[in-house]
């Protein structure tokens, strides 16, 4: 009967997809495990929902297609929520709200009032970050990179003066690495609901309202009982949720 059917869906493992290439949020360990902030949050949420969960690794190019064809149930990969994207996918409430920032050599001087950024060349990855730079500095010389790695590589090689990216990705990953020596945040962190969106969420198929509601509730509970803070503090020195 209907009860048995519901039990069955309750038993099924929830499968999340991630790119596993965006430290510290999602990355691969040497034994092939997928770890990171996203994964910890996901697993804690699953515990709250009393469900078993698993992660699979999926290339970004096919990540939405895989969701739509039910290869997995949700994308848990620090996806930025924007109005445009909401038209395609169903998002949870944000589970963190990254700010973005510019990074450059410690001595670089930039005129942030100038729509051309004072002639500085700037790089960003496509999507929300590209959108922001274009909107805020329409005259700036902008180069678009396929991923954050490439972006930092060109920053260190001097092909660009500034990189614009998620704040956490900059401070927790790039600036801590060897390559990041001699670089620093430039200017103030940016928050902009228009381009940068509301924050990072979990993406699901449009009709999966039950899962969205369960996850939203789990996130709330985790915020309330300190689970979230514990995970947050494992990675960051500030509260990334706000």
């Amino acid at each position, binding site marked *: 009967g209907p009860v048995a059917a519901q039990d069955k869906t309750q038993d099924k493992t929830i499968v999340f997809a991630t*790119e*596993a*290439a*965006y*430290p510290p949020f999602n*990355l*691969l*360990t*040497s034994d*092939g495990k997928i770890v990171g902030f996203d994964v910890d949050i996901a697993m804690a949420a699953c515990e709250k929902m009393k469900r078993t969960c698993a992660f*699979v*690794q*999926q*290339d970004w*190019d*096919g990540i939405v*297609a*895989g969701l*739509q*064809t*039910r*290869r997995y149930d949700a994308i848990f990969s620090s996806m930025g929520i924007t109005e445009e994207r909401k038209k395609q996918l169903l998002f949870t409430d944000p589970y963190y709200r990254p700010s973005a920032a510019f990074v450059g050599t410690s001595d670089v001087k930039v005129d942030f009032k100038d729509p051309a950024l004072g002639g500085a060349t700037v790089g960003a990855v496509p999507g929300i970050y590209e959108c922001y730079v274009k909107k805020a500095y329409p005259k700036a010389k902008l180069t678009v990179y396929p*991923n*954050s*790695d490439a972006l930092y*590589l060109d920053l260190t090689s001097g092909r660009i003066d500034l990189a614009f990216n998620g704040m956490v990705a900059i401070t927790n*990953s790039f600036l801590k*690495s060897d*390559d990041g020596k001699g670089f620093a945040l430039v200017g103030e962190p940016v928050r902009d609901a228009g381009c940068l969106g509301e924050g990072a969420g979990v993406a699901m198929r449009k009709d999966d309202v039950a899962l969205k509601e369960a996850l939203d509730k789990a996130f709330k509970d985790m915020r309330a009982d300190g689970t979230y803070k514990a995970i947050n503090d494992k990675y960051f020195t500030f509260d990334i949720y706000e």
Partner: protein
Amino acid sequence: MKVLTDFLPIVLHGMLVTVALSLGAMVLATAIGLGGAWARLAGNRAVRLAALAYTVLVRGMPPLVLMLLLYFGGQTAINATADALRLEPLRIEPFTAGIVSIGVIFGAYLTETFRGAYLSIPQGEIEAGIAVGMPPLTLARVVVLPPLMRLALPGYWNIWLTLVKSCALVSVIGLQDAVYAALSIGRSTREPFTFMLVVMVLYLAYTGLADLAFRALGRRLARGTRTAGV
């Protein structure tokens, strides 16, 4: 160095995926290519046009796009059918899907390679086979294939190498091949170049081994021919 040895198993596993995929796909592509070349040269106009459409459409789409379409598009179709019939949808295995889509893509290129080689076979040799009354398959096997393979070998070899490298595309359908492993480990550890070099070496070893086989095959197929020193 520690990073390298730690992560090597993942890259090696990726290489295994690459090897298995490329071998499977090449067999499939060769079969499709032979059939396609036959169809491209067939007397029947409809068959000819169908084969032409296949080669233009498949070569016309970027392999990445084609793979997405075949795999996810195919899955969408299966899901829709299954939903309509109230059945549990069949899941396409990524590995099978990888072999099939790469085989279908490169079958189109091989179709053209084999067609070109066929045109270069001395006409008289084929006529001699026809004249003794060989049935089509025997004719193909005994008279056409050996010179066809000889003439197609350089193109075939190139396509093989391109195919091996195109196996990296399967990451979009959720398989982790050597290149994808290297790229994602590179990003996870922020040491991109180390793993790229590892992948280059692995590829060179694999393709080098295959090269030896091709060279031997080339020598064997060249038996009986006189090449002119230019």
